[in-house]
């Protein structure tokens, strides 16, 4: 039968008592199949444009308040905590550059990624998990539609599109927080602050930040969808899907951060 698409590609029940290592490889195989299916089906018609916009709204707009608060506080606190160290060398004028680099290169993507993993990842995991255990996904399937396209492709794409936008928004709000702190303490004007900040940022910083945010968004969407879409065991399974969506996405985000920092360091001259 070729309709394996909606079932786990590996019938675990028929595999006799697999060991821990075998189970791990079977799970990795499942994940690989899931990701491959996204690339095979996600960009082909028919498109679920309305659902994609709906998900972008859910993931992006509904996270704005949390992202704004966190970004503003991070910018202010980071500036305040960095000041004493720079003051020792009489270099408080470097604060705008320091904050701009820190925010754009690492803090904004990481912060946005972690917040989205908690808010968006858990929500996707719980929603799809609940749809799986109440047979709503099966109902879509037996009505000759492709639930993967409607539920998974749209959510993964929406997260991949929205997280980079949120990342730059976080950086912007963080810079605003830093400016408020700097202007109160050093009396720096907005014009000087912006000029100092922009001078320190390179094109590579923007590219690196965008690439990281795209990867984080994809990871959050994919992990949430995988956990939810494949959940089982009733309400317990839904809770587990939501929880593991957050834990796994956060772990992967940190891992991706380490790898991407090393990777982009190869292109930096300073």
């Amino acid at each position, binding site marked *: 039968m070729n309709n394996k698409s*909606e*079932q786990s590609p590996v019938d675990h029940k028929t595999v006799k008592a697999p060991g821990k290592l075998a189970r791990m490889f079977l799970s990795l195989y499942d994940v690989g199949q899931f990701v491959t299916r996204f690339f095979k089906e996600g960009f082909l018609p028919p498109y679920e444009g309305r659902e994609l916009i709906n998900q972008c709204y859910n993931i992006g707009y509904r996270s704005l308040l949390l992202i704004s608060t966190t970004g503003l506080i991070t910018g202010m606190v980071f500036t305040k905590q960095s000041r004493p160290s720079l003051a020792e060398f009489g270099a408080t004028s470097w604060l705008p550059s320091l904050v701009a680099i820190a925010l754009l290169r690492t803090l904004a993507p990481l912060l946005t990624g972690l917040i989205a993993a908690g808010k968006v990842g858990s929500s996707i995991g719980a929603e799809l998990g609940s749809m799986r255990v*109440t*047979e709503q996904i099966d109902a879509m*399937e*037996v*009505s*000759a*539609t492709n639930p993967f396209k409607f539920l998974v492709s749209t959510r993964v794409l929406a997260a991949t599109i929205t997280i980079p936008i949120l990342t730059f928004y976080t950086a912007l709000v963080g810079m605003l927080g830093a400016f408020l702190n700097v202007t109160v303490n050093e009396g720096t004007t907005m014009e000087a602050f912006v000029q100092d900040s922009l001078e320190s940022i390179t094109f590579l910083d923007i590219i690196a930040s965008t690439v990281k945010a795209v990867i984080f968004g994809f990871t959050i969407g994919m992990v949430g969808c995988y956990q939810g879409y494949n959940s089982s065991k009733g309400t317990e399974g839904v809770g587990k899907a939501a929880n593991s969506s957050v834990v796994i996405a956060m772990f992967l985000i940190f891992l991706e951060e380490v790898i991407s920092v090393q990777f982009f360091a190869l292109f930096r001259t300073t």
Partner: protein
Amino acid sequence: MEQKPPTNKNAERVVEIRGLNKSFGSNEVLKHVDLDLYKGENLVVLGKSGTGKSVLIKILVGLLKPDSGRVLVLGNNVVDISYKELLALRLKVGFSFQNSALYDSMTVRENLEFPLVRNQRKLTRAEKKRAVEEMLDAVGLLKAINQMPSELSGGQRKRIGIARTLILQPEIMLYDEPTAGLDPITCLDINGLINEVQERFHTSSIVITHDLACAKEVGNRVAMLLDGKFERQGTFSEVFDTDDERVKTFYEYNFIQ
């Protein structure tokens, strides 16, 4: 309560199952099962909970994969059919879920539009609107069109679930425990609806249940699943006219209930 007329066995077979086996781990659920569904009949599949009744109809729509056997649905063997062919077949086979499986983030209208929009893209907006309203009217719930599933009663949810299935005008209807969890009056309503669907839409149906009142009211023919096999098939009276303790116990338990 009158029994429905028996099946015309000269009619075309729309489902033909031969030698079907399905296990979950070491638990053999279906053991070399043979079953036919004739065009225009309502076939009731009876059996205790956990005997594989729902598994059987999930295999018919390709939601589960059998271990072995031949499963012909409208001439297509779902065991080795391609995904594209399966999608085409699913348009002709409606499945009404035990818990209705309504999409709880969508209104009743959106629930009915969901399969329609994705499978009949040539329909105009007005035609889709009319189809949805006609179908809701057919199940007596036009007034619920803008409600969310959470605002509906169990019986209403079942009706909407059946309407959503019928909107694609299937040739075969599969009902999974249509009266489970409903009060006796609502059960009668649902049984009436199943008969109405058979008459009005000329469907052939398999009704999975353990409710004997439902079986008697909607079934032209009854098949009883015992220990993974259909050991008894026929009219309601034929199936229960036996000394088999397992059948008698099932009948008496339902009667007491």
